């Protein structure tokens, strides 16, 4: 039919075949495409948004999961390392001393803020009374913390290799104990709960005895060799203490009190530098001859303070006045009808007062020692007449020095009578 078709004819034939799509199809297809595009565009956008939220969730979830361990590590580091940062370089005993001092500060805060009020006990249905009781419990717990930390500090001090370090540690612990006696006795005055009073008193007693042992040990430590030092240290100091145990001992004491008091002499005070065989004044003994353990406590309280001269007692700082007043009231009302806890409180107060008095005694003697030296320095720059006066002052200072040396050597000062003596009748003098 078609023979010898040229290439150009073929191409022209192919190119000429161009059918048009129907207008209806174009219109319908365009409408369908528009609908599809608009619908899917909305779906696409919502899908993109949903994916975005999902992506965010996955991203932050993954980030948190991966960051959990590092963040936790950092938090632990901040919580553990930073609080110990300042005490990290301290010896181990010093850290426990610091912890005990922190607890002491809290006790001081309780006293200073008035949370342990110096008021009579109120009926328990008042919320204030309940709050007071809870504060007293807190004080008891803090006292126990102080005791346990002090014990640990003592244990750590005994394993120190250097003798100088040991002496320093014992000095720090002894100072801590003295502060404990003072501060805790401050709190003791304000306690109302019988159980709290008893427990805190026992803690004070134990601290007092331990402090005496420690001071004695510290003084003899330098003269001892290392082996005997350790042995003596362990024997004298490293006895564990707990308030519960002390409470049990108190019950036993109550049971055997009468029998003991018939046979034994009244308890004696253990002031630093004081001999063991010092006894209570006789009139005090007669007055407070106990028929049971609570009476014995009164006697012990008097005995503890007996070695101190009235002059010293009258010279005490205002800080001691509440203690004195409370102690005076307790001891004046000393009788068989007294509350059980009053005896404990009296003894605890006496311990606290004694510590304060001892401190003031030492401070006074230090001042007396310094005064002649300063005067002699001043006299070296003055005229001959002034030099003569200085000799007189010097003699005076020597007298004072000899007096203070007597005190340092453990000899008791002679009690002096003064106008205030009536206020201190309860001292037994």
């Amino acid at each position, binding site marked *: 039919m078609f023979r010898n078709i040229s290439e150009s004819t073929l191409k022209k*034939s192919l190119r000429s075949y*161009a*059918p048009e799509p129907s207008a209806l199809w174009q219109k319908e297809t365009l409408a369908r495409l*528009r609908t599809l595009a*608009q619908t899917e565009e909305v779906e696409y956008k919502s899908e993109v948004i949903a994916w975005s939220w999902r992506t965010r969730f996955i991203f932050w979830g993954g980030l948190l999961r991966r960051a959990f361990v590092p963040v936790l590590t950092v938090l632990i580091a901040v919580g553990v390392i930073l609080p110990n940062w300042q005490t990290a370089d301290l010896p181990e005993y010093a850290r426990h001393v610091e912890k005990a001092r922190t607890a002491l500060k809290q006790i001081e805060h309780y006293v200073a803020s008035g949370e342990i009020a110096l008021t009579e006990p109120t009926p328990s249905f008042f919320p204030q009374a309940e709050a007071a009781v809870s504060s007293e419990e807190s004080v008891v717990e803090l006292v126990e913390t102080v005791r346990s930390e002090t014990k640990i500090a003592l244990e750590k001090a005994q394993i120190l290799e250097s003798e100088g370090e040991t002496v320093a540690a014992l000095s720090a612990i002894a100072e801590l104990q003295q502060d404990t006696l003072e501060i805790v006795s401050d709190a003791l005055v304000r306690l109302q709960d019988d159980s709290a009073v008893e427990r805190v008193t026992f803690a004070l007693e134990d601290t007092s005895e331990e402090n005496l042992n420690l001071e004695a040990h510290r003084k003899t430590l330098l003269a001892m060799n290392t082996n005997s030092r350790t042995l003596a240290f362990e024997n004298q100091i490293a006895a564990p203490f707990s308030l519960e145990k002390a409470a049990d001992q108190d019950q036993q004491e109550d049971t055997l009190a009468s029998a003991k008091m018939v046979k034994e002499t009244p308890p004696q005070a253990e002031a630093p530098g004081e001999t063991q065989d010092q006894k209570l004044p006789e009139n005090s003994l007669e007055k407070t001859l106990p028929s049971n353990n609570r009476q014995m406590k009164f006697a012990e309280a008097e005995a503890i303070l007996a070695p101190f001269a009235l002059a010293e007692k009258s010279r005490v700082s205002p800080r001691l006045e509440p203690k004195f007043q409370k102690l005076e009231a307790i001891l004046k009302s000393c009788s068989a009808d007294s509350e059980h806890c009053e005896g404990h409180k009296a003894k605890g107060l006496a311990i606290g007062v004694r510590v304060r008095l001892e401190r003031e005694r030492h401070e006074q003697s230090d001042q007396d020692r310094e005064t002649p030296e300063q005067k002699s320095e001043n006299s070296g720059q003055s005229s001959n007449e002034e030099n003569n006066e200085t000799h007189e002052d010097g003699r005076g200072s020597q007298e004072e020095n000899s007096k203070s040396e007597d005190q340092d050597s453990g000899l008791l000062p002679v009690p002096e009578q003064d106008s205030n003596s009536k206020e201190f009748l309860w001292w037994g003098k």
Partner: protein
Amino acid sequence: MPPTTLETAADLESAFVTWNRLLFQYVFARLRQREVAEDLVQEVFFKAWRSRESFNAEKSSLKNWLFAITINAIRDYFRTKKPESEILTEDLASTQEVAREVGDKDLVRFVFKKVKKLPERDQELILLRYNQGLNVIEIADIVGMEYSATKVALHRAIKKLKTLCE
């Protein structure tokens, strides 16, 4: 101005308005059935819209990308359904220009009958080049071949067609 991307509904509409006629002619030349061609072209635009995220404007033009989809759609069509081998008379008769320009409708029918006997790839090349008027570069992009290979394949295809027509 023809669209270069297919991101919005407006782009899709614009693309359809611009290239629906061209795609339809190519599909019709291959299938020789108007309704099937219309359906297939419509499906091409649907597919293009759904897979618009895979379109890379830097790699290819939108026109070439649509042609590539069309070729694949035709291949799928032939794979699933046996095509009609005869060109419908009314389709050719409706093309008045053909008769006027070539002078003989029978010649056109004859030529397309011979094209139908060529291998599928040769049909694609000949129709894209001489029916749609695309250049070799565009054809190479659409069928996924090298330029020179496309040129050689096209030359051989037209020789085959000439041989068939003799």
